[in-house]
């Protein structure tokens, strides 16, 4: 069937529509997922803060539920409903808000199956937007996914573009485990080739975005596009970079990364999460542990500095890694010798 170019936002919307048509147990809840609850104006006034769930309220009566501003209650309700046969897709909106509902995710959703000896099933998907670049300031621009990746029992998905977003969202809804679906807010308008039909992408399988021999660039989320840009610049300078998008950071496809490192011997990891205990640090440690002998140079992690996200545009620009930072790190490891 046909591909067409649609945006990241439209791809996620399409995934939700197709799954809701296919499976009546799928419901959506969150603040203003429709918008206009109890107001004199329009229903479906928002369709989600960034419009991702636009149109679903009218199309699926009774299955798109606005909530008051009470994340603990409605994220917990999504989890509880999941244990009772529904497949809720809950919208946390800004991933920075996880602070007010982390217990329900960390101590309930993640652990019900294990604590019950395998008897609980919690097929909930919690979607939220992450990342800096829109000048929303420190409390609306973070990349908190390392928290989720570190919690056993959760699955953590970070689509880098529209194609991955649709396939991974459909997979997330069908998956029987709690999934945290991380959408970079800067990517919503980015278009990509997306099949019209429903399709899934498996968790724990990385995508090799570009083949190369001299250096491996592992990049997460929005960093993947920057990695492709950096790889093009590096190619012009005679350096052949292999770009790997893990797609899911839990489960993580370490094997594909190790295969690449066995070939190139050099690794950089680009991760927008704050540098202490982020996924770049995790991947680096795992690679060193498993494949020290394959490495010809130290690993370079490319992340923002250890600061909150600043507001002033010039400072936020400084904060965020750019393609040139990735290229510089790649050149460093390529040129490194004892």
């Amino acid at each position, binding site marked *: 069937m046909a591909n067409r170019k649609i945006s990241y936002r439209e791809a996620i919307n399409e995934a939700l529509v197709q799954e809701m048509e296919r499976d009546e147990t799928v*419901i959506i809840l969150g603040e203003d997922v429709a918008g206009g609850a109890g107001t004199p104006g329009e229903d479906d006034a928002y369709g989600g803060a960034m419009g991702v769930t636009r149109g679903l309220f009218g199309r699926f009566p*009774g*299955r798109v*539920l606005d*909530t*008051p501003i*009470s994340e*603990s*209650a*409605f*994220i*917990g*309700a*999504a*989890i*509880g*409903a*999941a*244990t*009772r*046969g*529904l497949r*809720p897709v809950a919208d946390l909106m800004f991933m920075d808000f996880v602070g*007010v509902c982390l*217990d*329900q995710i960390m*101590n*309930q959703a993640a652990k*019900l*199956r*294990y*604590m*019950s*000896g*395998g*008897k*609980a*099933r919690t097929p909930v998907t919690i979607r939220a937007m992450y990342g800096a670049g829109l000048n929303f300031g420190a409390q609306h621009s973070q990349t908190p996914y390392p928290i989720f990746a570190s919690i*056993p*029992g959760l*699955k953590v998905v970070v689509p880098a573009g529209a194609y991955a977003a649709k396939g991974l969202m459909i997979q997330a809804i069908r*998956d*029987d*485990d709690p999934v945290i679906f991380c959408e970079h807010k800067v990517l919503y308008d980015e278009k990509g080739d997306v099949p019209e039909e429903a399709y899934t992408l498996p968790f724990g399988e990385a995508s090799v975005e570009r083949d190369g021999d001299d250096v491996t660039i592992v990049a997460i989320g929005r960093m993947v596009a920057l990695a492709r840009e950096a790889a093009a610049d590096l190619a012009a300078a005679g350096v052949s970079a292999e770009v790997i998008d893990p797609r899911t950071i839990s489960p993580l496809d370490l094997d594909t990364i190790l295969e690449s490192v066995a070939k190139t011997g050099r690794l950089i990891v680009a991760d927008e999460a704050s540098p202490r205990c982020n996924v770049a640090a995790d991947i680096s440690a795992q690679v060193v542990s498993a494949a020290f002998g394959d490495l010809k140079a130290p690993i370079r992690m490319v992340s923002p500095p250890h600061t909150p996200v600043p507001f002033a545009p010039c400072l936020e620009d400084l904060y965020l890694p750019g393609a040139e930072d990735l290229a510089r790190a790649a050149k460093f490891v390529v040129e490194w010798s004892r």
Partner: protein
Amino acid sequence: MPQSLSTVGARAAALDPGQLLNLYRVMRTIRAFEDRLHEEFATGDIPGAVHLYAGQEAAAAGVCAHLDEERDVIVSSHRGHGHCIAKGLDVTEMMAEIFGKRTGSCAGKGGSMHIADFSKGMLGANGIVGGGPPLICGAALAAKIRNDGGVGVTFFGDGAVNQGTTLESLNLASVWKLPVLFVAENNGYGEGAASDWAVAGGSIAGRAGGFGMPGITVDGTDVLAVYDAAGEAVELARAGGGPTLLEVKSTRFYGHFEGDPQTYRGKDEVRDARENLDSVRRFRQWMAVSGQFTDSELDAVDDTISLLIDNAVAAARAADSPESSALLTDVYSRY
């Protein structure tokens, strides 16, 4: 001297002898289970922590008597054994779970604070104060969407009443008109702090009005009063009338946890409570006085339960611990 229960309400008055006997059986089983656990814990053979429910039986029994296994769901707190028993969980499996054995309700992977049986509509005891209410809002949402008349009941303590999750859930259940019964068991203490001190406003049930739902206070030493109040709330929920907050006032005979020196309690408080606030003894006396039951009939029930608990402990002690491989299973649906 037998103490009579308060004037029996209409719903309680309609209970037949079999149902009354069942109420008694549930309460007596809970009491026997918890008293025995107190002894077993003192031997040092039970890992971790247990939080005993003795003294509060009427809440679990009186509420759960209205619930069915298929469509009604409960969630509980760290002090959850009584609710598990009242919801029909297997006592032998529960005991094995508390001992950490592979034959336990959760294969030994949950323990006292996480006993659950999802097949019987018991979403678990919960180690997080206030962890239950949001989950039960979800269970109730599922019931409402399926339109099967099911209700969700969340049992929590006076401590949880001040937790954000509980207050958010009271609001959400009201906004969405969910079939939920919020049962606040006020046993006078949130761990080591008096509920009178910790709960601003002086009344837990009094908070219900702020959320637009009925709030009822009931004497937790009177199982028929609890039964009546709960019946009204369950009926309202099933009919689509939304949630109710039920405050059940009782007392716990043991500490917050086993091993708690309870120095925060009055000198003779526990002794007085055991003498004057024993819901199980009160109900048994009422049953005897009602003329429908003989002492020997009730003794026979007590003996059966005693034997059940003895066997459960023996089975738990004899059972194996989990296999080492169990460490790595049930993290995800497939691994």
